[in-house]
């Protein structure tokens, strides 16, 4: 009964995510005013930035779960860390895609290697892509869990570097919206952004829970098969 309890809350969570996503999209695409400088292409900001922040959050969550695995030795943290990093790479690839589309719309280029923040995000993304190569090249067991946990913890050091690079960079390509003086946008734009951020975070959490539930059912079935045969 207790095993099914986490799965039972998923339909409610999915309904809440759908509702919040609908409101967020309406605010971002209809209610929020058009940017005077960038025009309609600025609306990509409402999806690109929340997705990027969620990718950072997922990688950080994966590293936190990896730390818990190393500290407590509980095997369930290995699966949780893996699923969080998997979500991080999904949202990371979406960050790169939406960012490229926005760059093309605003500045006429898909990608530039001269921009540190873009390259650093790509490095972070590729670092976590290599996590899967490491994971699937090792034999299943506690040793694999610990090795992957150490790797995930190394990657987390890249998150503040990538995040701060956007603030420290002096080039033209990547604007800084959140400064020490607060958000550099109007109230309705900021409200739309907050809703989008909440919706994307909730979507990531929902996908994390769904994937985790699927992987646990898979593992339970494998054990059951072994017990029956």
């Amino acid at each position, binding site marked *: 009964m207790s095993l099914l309890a986490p799965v039972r809350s998923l339909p409610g969570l999915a309904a809440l995510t759908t509702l919040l996503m609908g409101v967020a999209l309406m605010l971002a695409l209809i209610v929020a005013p058009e940017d005077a400088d960038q025009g309609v292409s600025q*609306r990509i900001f409402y*999806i690109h930035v929340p*997705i990027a922040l969620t990718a950072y959050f997922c990688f950080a969550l994966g590293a936190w779960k990896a730390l818990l695995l190393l500290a407590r030795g509980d095997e369930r943290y290995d699966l949780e860390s893996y699923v969080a990093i998997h979500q991080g790479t*999904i949202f990371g690839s979406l960050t790169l895609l939406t960012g490229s589309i926005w760059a*093309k719309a605003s500045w006429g280029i898909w990608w530039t290697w001269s921009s540190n923040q873009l390259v650093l995000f790509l490095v972070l993304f590729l670092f976590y892509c290599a996590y899967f190569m490491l994971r699937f090249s090792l034999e299943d067991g506690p040793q694999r869990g610990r090795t992957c946990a150490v790797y995930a913890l190394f990657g987390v050091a890249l998150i503040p570097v990538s995040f701060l690079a956007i603030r420290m960079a002096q080039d033209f390509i990547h604007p800084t919206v959140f400064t020490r003086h607060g958000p550099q946008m109007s109230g309705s734009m900021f409200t739309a952004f907050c809703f989008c951020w909440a919706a994307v975070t909730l979507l990531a959490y929902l996908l994390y829970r769904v*994937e985790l539930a*699927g992987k646990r059912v898979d593992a339970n*079935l494998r054990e059951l098969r072994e017990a029956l045969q």
Partner: protein
Amino acid sequence: MTQGQYVAAAYGVVFVFVLAYVAIIAAKLARLQRQTTELLRLAQRRQQPDRETADAGPREVLHEA
């Protein structure tokens, strides 16, 4: 491409990703359902001889008596 089309493309990419994810989860769910059915049949097959043995047991005892 117009600016509006770029916006549509950015939001469309996210939508397609979520849709693909749901499709993958649906495929996985179908596989899990198939595996559960297989395991159920396996458990039933294993239960069948046990039941037959249990049914035969007391009858033999009665026969001997």
